[in-house]
């Protein structure tokens, strides 16, 4: 996964690119206001859009619900809850990722952690 965050005026723009084992690329983008909470959400929304495409499942949908940064196991961790829909099934899922400097990238990884089993992304 590659995540790129840009600041454009009073907005963030995030792009998340996923590559499958055959080298095909799937990109999701999202915009959000320039606040810490929206930085997280923008990264998560971009990852959700990329995951929908990468799944290859017609009508697959990943809806980002809640996001939080918590401290556990001595590390800063992004926690996300998402609702994923695919093939007429819906799952309530949670994902986590350690923060390594970039909050938007951590939020994107947390979305992938939540969805990779049901969307078969790994």
């Amino acid at each position, binding site marked *: 996964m590659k995540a790129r965050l840009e600041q454009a005026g009073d907005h963030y723009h995030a792009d998340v690119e996923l590559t499958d084992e055959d080298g095909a690329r799937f990109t999701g983008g999202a915009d959000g206001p320039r606040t810490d909470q929206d930085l997280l959400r923008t990264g998560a929304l971009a990852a959700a859009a990329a995951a929908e495409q990468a799944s290859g499942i017609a009508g697959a949908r990943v809806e980002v*619900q809640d996001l939080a940064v*918590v401290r556990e*196991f001595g590390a800063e*961790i992004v*926690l996300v809850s998402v609702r994923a829909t695919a093939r007429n099934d819906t799952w309530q899922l*949670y994902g*986590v990722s350690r923060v390594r400097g970039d909050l938007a990238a951590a939020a994107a990884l947390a979305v992938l*952690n*939540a969805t990779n089993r049901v969307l078969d992304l*790994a």
Partner: protein
Amino acid sequence: MSAESAERLPRIRLSGAQRIPVATGQCRVRVKLEAPDHKSFLGTGEDTASLEGELHAAAHATVDALRQAIRVTGKKVELELREVATFDAFGKPGVMVSLRGTYLNTERPLLGFAALENDVPRSVVKAVLSATNRFLAVLT
């Protein structure tokens, strides 16, 4: 299918998780994981009879079963359980696990989370699989 992908660890799924009655003061958890070809891997873990003990027993049982699944592939992968904790997330209880995966002399910290439901062992298995799923699936 290429030879490389044929050696990959197949997607492992939870088949069952069960608390087994043992002597007073102890709890034992048995976890059964299943590969797509219906090959199953049974792991066990034991700890003290408490919520914390049950969490640890279930996590150890899951790692035990995963190690057996990894062994079948012949890959030099190590999994080590580091921490298990309950956690409030968005107003609901959850369980978070931390593991360390090692492959080709490279260590990777792994994190997983699942909602904590009445079936505690099952919740823990989901958290461990959430942590290890991607790491194990992309081994080449």
